[in-house]
C-alpha cells in the first residue's frame, strides 16, 4: 500500500465488493471505535489546556508587563498626602500612560476574597494602591524608585517582574505539557490501531491467502483493511471530539477572575483546532494499518 492520492481516495470512495472480502468483526470494531473516541476526547482537553496555558503565558508576559503598582504605606493621616505626591511625580514621569489611585471600594473588593465583605477598611492601615499603566516604551523603574524615595517615603514601586516571571514560566511549561500529551495521545492511537490491524490481519490469514491466490494485488487487499480501520478511527475520533467539545463548552465559567486566569476553553478561531483531531486520527490509522498490511503481505507469496 503506497501513500498516494489514489490510495487516500480509495479509502473514501471505497469499493463495496472490496469491502466485503474482509469478514465483519463486531466486537473488535467496537473496541477500536471506543478507543479512538476516548483518545479524541482526551485530546480535546489536552488541546484546550495547551491553548489556555498559551493565553496565560501571553497575557502575563505582555499585558501585565505594561502595568505596575505603587503601594503607599503610611499612617492613615498622611496617606492621602503621600498618594497625591506620588501621583504628581507619575504625571511627569516618562513612560507612564496613566496612573490612578484605587478607591476604598475597589480595595475592599480586592481584599474581600480573603477577609470577607464586611471589613471596615477605613479603620485599618491598609496601604493605598496606585495603578500605573505604562506606554509601550515602559518606565525606568530604578529612576522612578529614586524620585519616589526622595519625595514620598512611603511609596513602594512594584513592576510585577518578581512574581510575573515564574508564572510565565509555569504557564509555558503547562503549554508544553499539553502538547506533549497530544503527541503521546497520537502515538497511543497509532499503537492501538496497529495492534488492532495486526490482529485483524492475523485472524484473516485465510482471507488474504485466498485473495492472493485468485490474483488480488497487494493494494487491493491492503485497501480493504486500511479503509475499514481508517473509517473506524475517523468515526470514533469524531464522536469523541464532539463529546469533548461539548464538555469544554459546558465547563463552568471562571467568572470575573476569568479575565486574569482565562478559562480552560477555546476562544475565537481556536474552536476550529479540535476539528482536526479526527482528521489526525484518520491519518494515523491510515498510515498504521497500511504499514501493518504491508508487513503481513510481504511474508506471503
Amino acid at each position, binding site marked *: 500500500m503506497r501513500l498516494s492520492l489514489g490510495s487516500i481516495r480509495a479509502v473514501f470512495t471505497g469499493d463495496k*465488493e*472490496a469491502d*466485503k472480502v474482509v*469478514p465483519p468483526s463486531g466486537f473488535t470494531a467496537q473496541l477500536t471505535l471506543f478507543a479512538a473516541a476516548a483518545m479524541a476526547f482526551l485530546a480535546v482537553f489536552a488541546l484546550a489546556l495547551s491553548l489556555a496555558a498559551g493565553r496565560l503565558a501571553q497575557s502575563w508576559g505582555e499585558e501585565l508587563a505594561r502595568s505596575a503598582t505603587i503601594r503607599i504605606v503610611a499612617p492613615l493621616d498622611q496617606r492621602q498626602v503621600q498618594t497625591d505626591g506620588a501621583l504628581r511625580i507619575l504625571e511627569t514621569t516618562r513612560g507612564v500612560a496613566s496612573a490612578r489611585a484605587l478607591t476604598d471600594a475597589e480595595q475592599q473588593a480586592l481584599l474581600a476574597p480573603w477577609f470577607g465583605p464586611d471589613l471596615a477598611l477605613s479603620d485599618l492601615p491598609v496601604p493605598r494602591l496606585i495603578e500605573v499603566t505604562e506606554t509601550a516604551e515602559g518606565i525606568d523603574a530604578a529612576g522612578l524608585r529614586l524620585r519616589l524615595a526622595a519625595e514620598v517615603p512611603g511609596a513602594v514601586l512594584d513592576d510585577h517582574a518578581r512574581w510575573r516571571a515564574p508564572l510565565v514560566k509555569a504557564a509555558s511549561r503547562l503549554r508544553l505539557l499539553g502538547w506533549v500529551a497530544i503527541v503521546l495521545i497520537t502515538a497511543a492511537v497509532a499503537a492501538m490501531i496497529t495492534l488492532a490491524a495486526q490482529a485483524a490481519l492475523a485472524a484473516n490469514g*485465510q482471507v488474504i491467502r485466498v485473495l*492472493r*491466490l485468485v490474483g488480488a494485488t*497487494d493494494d487491493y487487499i491492503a485497501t480493504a483493511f486500511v479503509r475499514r480501520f481508517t473509517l473506524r478511527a475517523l468515526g470514533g475520533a469524531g464522536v469523541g471530539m464532539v463529546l469533548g467539545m461539548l464538555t469544554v463548552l459546558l465547563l463552568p465559567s471562571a467568572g470575573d477572575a476569568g479575565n486574569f486566569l482565562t478559562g480552560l476553553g477555546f476562544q475565537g478561531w481556536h474552536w476550529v483546532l479540535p476539528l482536526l483531531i479526527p482528521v489526525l486520527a484518520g491519518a494515523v490509522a491510515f498510515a498504521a494499518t497500511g504499514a501493518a498490511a504491508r508487513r503481513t503481505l510481504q511474508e506471503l*507469496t
Partner: protein
Amino acid sequence: MIELENVAYSYGGGELLSDISLKLAPGSFHFLTGPSGAGKTTLMKLCYGALLPTAGHVRLFGADVRGLGRDDIAVVRRRVGVVHQDVQFLDHLSVAENVALPLSVSGRHEEAAGGDLGELMSWVGLTNHVNALPPELSGGERQRAALARAVIMSPDVVLADEPTGNVDWDMSQRLLRLLIELNKMGKTVLIATHDLGLIRATKAHVQARVLRIANRKIQLAGADL
C-alpha cells in the same frame, strides 16, 4: 505458457526437486504423479509463482518469475486457475460470490453478477448451492466450487492439485470431464494426482502425458499406463 528449466527446489536442508525441466505447451494436458511427499504440490506452486526456485529458471508466459514484482505475480494468477488440495474460500461470502471472486478482485464486478456465473454454477452442478456458505458444502462440492472459481476468468492454464482427493469415483469422473472439456476449449491443464485409475480413464478421452516425480527428478511415464 509455463516453462521450467533445470529447476531445483530445496526446503531447509534437503533438496526436494533437482534439475527439473518441463514445458507446458498451450492446449496440452498433463498429469503429474508420484508418491506422496515427492514434491507434486511444490512443483505446482513453482508453476504459479507461489514458490521461487532455488536454482534454475521458471518462466511464466515468457517472463522469468524472479523478475516479476508482486503485482505482476497477481496478474499472472489471473491467467492461471489453481485448484488447491485443501481448497480455501472466504467463509463469510456465499458460494457464488466466492466463485466470482477472481472477477471482483480484478475489477470486473459487472461480469461477476452476469449470466456466465449461473451457467458456470450449473456446469459444476452447484446451482442449488449458489447462496450457501462454503463451510456448508461437502468435500466434493468444495472441489467443484474451487474448479469453478479457477476457471471463471477463462484462464490460459488450469493447475489442479489432487482435485479428486475428497470425492467418490462418480464425482471424480465428473470433475475430470469438466477438466477435459476445458482442455478441448484450448486450456492448458496440469493435474497432480496419485490416482492411476483416473489417469487411465482420462486417456480414453484426451491425449494426456503423464509426468512422474521420482528421486527428485521428473520423468515422462510411457505407455505402461
